[in-house]
């Protein structure tokens, strides 16, 4: 369902992705690992359509849609969800208000029935419970004053409600304590389905103990330089990236 072929992309004119190939089939979980600055977040942002992230070559196709031709909101409506590495605050706009607007737009575009406010509130409360967020968070401004871990859980809460076709999670595990990590993993696992693809960007094997991936890829300097099964992550944990990139591991 997601088909990325020879993707080249530039950020503010600077080439970051340099010929990336990746295929995600429904039901699969892919983990993308790789050194800092290798282009992982760039890939997520390019797919989601952030401003100034420009596709300069190749293609990314989601369920037959050429993503380059869609506005960011249209990509979301086509079922693409990005859980941000650094979720931003929107002061004064309540989480609930935000969810309502998002779900209205996306469900309408997907031809799903609209949720009335009672249903919405019930579902939102359930989703909060699933990620261990107090329902009070629905009334607070989007990410406003949330702790780092709360922001990440808030992203997963939104994802549970949006029921995406393709979920991209950019370092959702960073900054989580061990309990929160398990909570988030449970949330993500509950979304695993034969209908859905999941792409996890992570630096740590730890997350992959809880969300076991079907495929693991190593991204380096804008290209996938190695792919394998879940054992690849274990190997990376032990050896670092140096043996793959041909450089000494600095960390």
């Amino acid at each position, binding site marked *: 369902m997601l088909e990325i072929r020879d993707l080249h992309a530039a950020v503010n004119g600077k080439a970051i992705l340099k010929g990336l190939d990746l295929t995600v089939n429904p039901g699969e979980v892919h983990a993308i690992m790789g050194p800092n600055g290798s282009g992982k977040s760039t890939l997520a942002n390019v797919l*989601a359509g*952030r*401003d100034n992230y420009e596709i300069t070559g190749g293609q990314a196709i989601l369920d037959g849609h050429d993503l380059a031709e869609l506005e*960011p909101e249209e990509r979301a409506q086509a079922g693409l*969800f990005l859980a941000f590495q650094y979720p*931003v605050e*929107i002061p*004064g706009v309540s989480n609930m208000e935000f969810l309502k607007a998002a779900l209205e*737009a996306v469900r309408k575009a997907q031809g799903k029935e609209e949720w009335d406010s009672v249903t919405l509130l019930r579902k939102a409360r359930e989703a909060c419970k699933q990620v261990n967020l107090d329902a009070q968070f629905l009334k607070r401004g989007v990410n406003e004053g949330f702790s780092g871990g709360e922001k990440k859980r808030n992203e997963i809460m939104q994802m549970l409600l*949006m029921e995406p076709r393709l979920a991209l999670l950019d370092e959702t595990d960073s900054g989580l304590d061990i309990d929160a990590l398990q909570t988030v993993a449970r949330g993500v696992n509950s979304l695993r389905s034969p209908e859905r693809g999941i792409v996890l960007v992570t630096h740590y094997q730890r997350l992959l103990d809880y969300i076991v991936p079907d495929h693991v890829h190593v991204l380096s300097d804008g290209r996938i330089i190695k792919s394998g099964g879940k054992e690849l992550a274990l190997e990376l944990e032990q050896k670092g990236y140096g043996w793959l990139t041909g450089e000494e591991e600095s960390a």
Partner: protein
Amino acid sequence: MSSQAELDKVIRSEYEAGFTTLVESDTLPPGLSEDVIRFISAKKGEPEWLLEWRLEAYRKWREMPEPEWAHLHYPKVDYDAISYYSAPKSMEDRPKSLDEVDPELLDTYKKLGIPLHEQEMLAGVAVDAVFDSVSIGTTFKEKLAEAGVIFCSISEAVQEHPELVRQYLGSVVPKSDNFFAGLNSAVFTDGSFVYIPKGVRCPMELSTYFRINEANTGQFERTLIVADEGSYVSYLEGCTAPQRDENQLHAAVVELVALPGAEIKYSTVQNWYPGDEDGKGGIYNFVTKRGVAHDHAKISWTQVETGSAITWKYPSVVLRGDHSVGEFYSVALTRHAQQADTGTKMIHLGKNTKSTIVSKGISAGKSSNAYRGLVRMGPRAENARNFTQCDSLLLGDRCGAHTFPYIESKHPSATVEHEATTSKVSDDQLFLCRQRGIDPEKAISMIVNGFCKEVFKELPMEFAVEAGKLLEVSLEGAVG
């Protein structure tokens, strides 16, 4: 699409209240002289003392220089090119009730979403509608009368309650207070009058709706609200004007008197025509609004300003009595080439007086938005306290926001706190919304509404919703 292009689309929306009503009007030829003032006064059948009052104001006004200190730029207004009186012909013989009002006029208000027929009205809101220079009718009069509340046009109050008008008119804003107040005192045509008797809690929201229709006329309304001891009233004004290429002048005066223990809550939703993208046309809004709070009284100004080519307006509170409270909550949105210079003055005279200022400025397009606030702690203002918060939000990078706080403290125990922030609707915020499927237009209006939340929650319920919609409309554009 770049976010600048996105923002441009969003802010380039149309003015929805820009239509003109075709009614025959009696409009005075342009120009100002003592004769014009005599004409207005005679037309209104005013007593001699009021004519004298006007003439005195006029003579003083002629000697006053026009203020130039505000952060505003505009061609000089030619005061002789303005007509100072315009009334729909059908109002010649004042209709006795709304049933006798020209349907064309009622229709105007209906189109604007202000139905004047009581059966269609928002429950619990009484409306006085002012069309160009005259009030065309006030609703819910009987119900208010039962509570002893007087709510009528100021012309009517001059006839029916001259002693109240004479006692309080000009008591808060003296006739030579400033250039625009002076002009208003000379030529004011209509406006609303409210009196709440001792200990009465006004049973409904009161509201005045101002509409400028005729071309080349100015609107000089005068509003006077007196809340007697221990009473309470919540009052709302709304304003629109047709879309025209010429600039029109609006120079109003609003005076509030909160006697001991009284509370006045005054809310404004101002949506005068702002002019087009290049700054052509639009209302010049030069308004003097001030209230005096006596012992234990409270005056609270809440304003949502989205219109006018130029806004010059500083609703103020004189905290004369001990333990009196003044509040100012403001949202000012400017776009296109609009200029706003607005803020407040809190003059602390009494002991233990307290004031709060929350100002939210939103600038888009090539507009300029300035907050100008004065907090003065007088020599008697023991333990007086002020808290000021000024936040500016910029949409795009061709607009400007400026903050000019002035603080004068003559009492060592007085405390003044000031916080100011400037932020942009960030690309990150916009992207988060869009990534969740929300279109950019809706996203921006949601973010802006969120920014204004602290102020909107001060508005009466029905109007908070209205204000939110108004912002949405003001920010709306066809995003293709």
